[in-house]
Structure formats: structure tokens, C-alpha cells
């Protein structure tokens, strides 16, 4: 019986490999094995797509880290940094009020090689839900911005998102207008966001966002900025970053948000 059937997936965290390691994740199976002077890496997904890599090493043991990463790599690095979250159900924000929501945030999984000086080298990445590796355009075809796309649901505070597919993200939305507003999508840059995970579990949380709805000459806009994940506890671990450059900037949704 496979681990998938038992619904027992491998956890995020560090793994030390001296012989053979099998990792089971939703729709994904990874085998890392020592063979004479090299370690071979094999990954297969639910669509029977296979990937093989090897790294020749003289060491008897290697360490890897399995961690959630930003969803900017698959199917290809095309967008600069924008994430387009389409909410399965729109939210209504009352006039002159602030609301805080918890939403799913799509993630990819990264495999990092842990060096002897404890630095991490990005080795491989994959998604446990290929349908999430998609693109969308924010704006019109003439002047829109290409974004990575995720269709997400709101979460209750105690609710956990689907493991290995989503992390949690909190969005604090302030409506400074004198009438209520309906929001159906959130678009914002993500390269500055850190992802945190809990060792030996599948829990992941990404930095939050602050959104302010206000009136500008062009119409109603939402200004979105990064906010640190403030409620992280000591046992949350910062996931390593890939080679995507972190850039902190605000983004203004001025092309609609319904």
C-alpha cells in the first residue's frame, strides 16, 4: 500500500540521506538514492511525467530540505512578480470599515540541497496541483499585466488549507469609501513575501497583505502592500528562497477588482 493510500504524506523539513529516501506527496513521488559515486534523484507526478537528475558527490550522506516556495516557477518563469488570486466567493467590505480575511495561497514545493555551511541551493521544484500553474492577465489585453493565477477560497481561522497545495495568507482590507465594495480578486507582487512552515508537518503560512480601498481620479482602486506574518510563533521556520530576487513594492489595482 502506498503512502498516498494511507493519506500519509512526507512532511516539510530536512532529510538526511545515506542510502535511499522516498518522499510521497499528493500526485508526486520522489526517490533519492545513493549509487556508487552519486546520488540519483527521481520525481514522477500524477501525469506520469518523470524527471531524473543526479549529483556526483564524494560524501556518504547528503541533506536536503523540502519546503514550500512562491508559485512563480511553473510552468515557466514568465511574470515579473505578480500573483492574481481569484476568490471563489466575492467578499463585501462595508463602508469605512476594516475586515480581515484568511485565504488560501497557492504554493509550489522546492527541494533544496543543504550545504555543509548550512546554506541552501535550489535543486528542484514541482507542484502537487498542476492546475495551479496557470497564468492570468490583470487588465485589458492592450495594457494588462501578466500574473500567476490561483483560484482560492476563504478559510475560517481554525480551518487548514489543502496540504502541499496551499499556504494560508491573511489579508487585511480597509475600505475608506463611503459605500460598500465587492472584491472578487486580489492582485499583488509576491517576491518580497516569505513563506513559513512548521517542521515535520504540512502547515505553511505566507506573509500577509494590507489592502486599502480608496477613490482616485481614475476610479476606485485598491492599494496593496506587503505585511509581515505577525502571528508566527517560534516553531515556524522560514522556508529557503529560490533565486527569485525579492523586491518590496506597493501595487495599485486600478483596473478593477470584481
Amino acid at each position, binding site marked *: 500500500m502506498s503512502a498516498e493510500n494511507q493519506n500519509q504524506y512526507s512532511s516539510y523539513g530536512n532529510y538526511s540521506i545515506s542510502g535511499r529516501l522516498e518522499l510521497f506527496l499528493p500526485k508526486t513521488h520522489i526517490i533519492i538514492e545513493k549509487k556508487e559515486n552519486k546520488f540519483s534523484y527521481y520525481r514522477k507526478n500524477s501525469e506520469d511525467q518523470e524527471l531524473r537528475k543526479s549529483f556526483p558527490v564524494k560524501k556518504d550522506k547528503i541533506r536536503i530540505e523540502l519546503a514550500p516556495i512562491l508559485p512563480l516557477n511553473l510552468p515557466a518563469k514568465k511574470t515579473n512578480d505578480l500573483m492574481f488570486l481569484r476568490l471563489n466567493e466575492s467578499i463585501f467590505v462595508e463602508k469605512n470599515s476594516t475586515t480581515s480575511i484568511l485565504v488560501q495561497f497557492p504554493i509550489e514545493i522546492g527541494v533544496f540541497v543543504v550545504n555543509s555551511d548550512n546554506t541552501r541551493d535550489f535543486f528542484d521544484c514541482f507542484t502537487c496541483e498542476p492546475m495551479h500553474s*496557470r*497564468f492570468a*492577465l490583470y487588465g485589458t489585453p492592450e495594457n494588462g499585466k*501578466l500574473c500567476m493565477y490561483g483560484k482560492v477560497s476563504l478559510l475560517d481561522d481554525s480551518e487548514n488549507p489543502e496540504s502541499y497545495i496551499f499556504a494560508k495568507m491573511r489579508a487585511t482590507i480597509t475600505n475608506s469609501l463611503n459605500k460598500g465594495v465587492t472584491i472578487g480578486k486580489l492582485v499583488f507582487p509576491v517576491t518580497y513575501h516569505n513563506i513559513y512552515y512548521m517542521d515535520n508537518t504540512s502547515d505553511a503560512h505566507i506573509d500577509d497583505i494590507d489592502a486599502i480601498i480608496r477613490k482616485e481620479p481614475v476610479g476606485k482602486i485598491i492599494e496593496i502592500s506587503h505585511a509581515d506574518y505577525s502571528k508566527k510563533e517560534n516553531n515556524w521556520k522560514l522556508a529557503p528562497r529560490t533565486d527569485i530576487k525579492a523586491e518590496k513594492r506597493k501595487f495599485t489595482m486600478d483596473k478593477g477588482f470584481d
Partner: protein
Amino acid sequence: MAFEIFDVQIMDTGVTVGRLLITAIIALTGVIIARIARLFFKKRFAPNMPVDNAKSIDKLIYYGIIIVFLLAATASQGIDLGGLVVAGGFMGIVIGFAAQSVVSNLISGLFLMIEKPVKQGNQIELPDSNVNGTLIDINTFSSRIQQFDGTVVRIPNEKMFTSNIRTFALSEIRRSDVTVGIAYKEDIKKAIAVMKDAIEKNVTYSLMEPAPTFWVTELADSSVNIWVRVWHPRDDLAEVMPILLRVIKEALDKEGIEIPFPQRVIWQGDSNE
């Protein structure tokens, strides 16, 4: 004795061999400095600039330094270019007629670099010339376009400047269209739903928003034709078009939706009549 040759005048113009030599040395120094400046620019600044801007500035630096040194060399040695200009005026007319297309290409190249209707790396199409590919660069006299089959086409700048240029450079996405015919007996709504679902699941580069659209465009002789329009990232035509029709056909086949082929029923006259 040996240095007397430097005082020899050339054709009684007042210009000595020595002056000419010094002029040549200064000009050569200019070329060397221009090359060093170009190298420095390429290593230090060019990597952080857009490729097309970097190329233009690179040329400006190189030729600018050479021209400055050339002028400085002639002026410092008292070589009067005025006579050359007068003599060159007449020769210029003669050469101008002979080299009309060369000058035209040069000027067009300058205007292309200033106006920048397209940039290096853009996918462009020149419908008049039937050229379709990626713009490699715009040089002094010609531009080079690498077509999708790998061949490189050299287009004279004049032609490039006066041609209609079709490009997707201003938008981050583009649209690809295919037409699919389904049988008259089939449920159009169901067929569209099947195609939409198949595209979303299997054509990875198809945008989720704007989503694919489906227009019933024709009640044709043998089929109801549906125009399928799929948006995708600008440079990923090759990731979409080769699989789009296959994905649609497989999905329709799986659902038992018929894609008809043209049929004609021929009635033979009754021989008893």
C-alpha cells in the same frame, strides 16, 4: 638625415609626412580609446540596461570618440579640412547618386534606432516581405530577423523603415484562434463546455483570465462552426497552437461529440420515369 622624410610636403599642400603620421597616430589612439570605452561600457553598464538601448549607446560611444579624435588630430596638425569639404562637395554629389541606397539605409537605420518601433528580441512580422520572426538587431545598414525555422533574414533598413511592421511587443499576451466544426445533431452548449474544460486542464499556457471564448460563427454545409479564441503569454505560441486542436479533438471524441466531414448526398433520377 633619416628624419628629413618627415619634413617632405605632400603635393605642395603644406601637409608634411610627419604631420600626417602624427594625425594617424592620434586617430589610432582614438580607435584604441574608443574600444576600451566600449569594453568598459559593455562590462559595467550594458548588463543593467535594455538590450536595444545598450546597443545604441555602445555605437554612439564608439563612433563618437573616433570622430572627436579624428577632428582633434586634423585640427592640431593644422590640416585644413575646408579644402576637402569643397572638393568633397562635388564628389559628394557624384557619390550621393551612386550610393543613394546606402545612404538611405544609413538614415533609415538611424531613424529606426531613434523611433524604436520595435526592439531587439521582439517577435515581429513584415507582411509585405512575408518575414516572420525575432528581431536580432538593427545595424548601420540592415536589420536581421531570425525566423522560427532558424534562418536569418537580412532586411535593408530602408525597407524595414517603410514596411508595415506587425508586432506583439506592446502587449504581454496574444490570442490564437482555431475553428472547430461539430455535427448539427450535437448540443452546442455541451460541446463548448467540453472544449473549455479540456483547454483549461491541458493547455497549460492558456490564460485563465481572460478565459477562452467560443463563438458560433457559421452554420456551414456540414457542420456548426465554432471559433475558439485562446489567450496566452505573448512568446508562447509554440506552447499552445501545436496542441490546441489535438486537445479539443480528443475531448470531443471522448464525449462522443461528432466532428463531421463534408458529405454530399447524390440522388440518381428514377430510371422508370
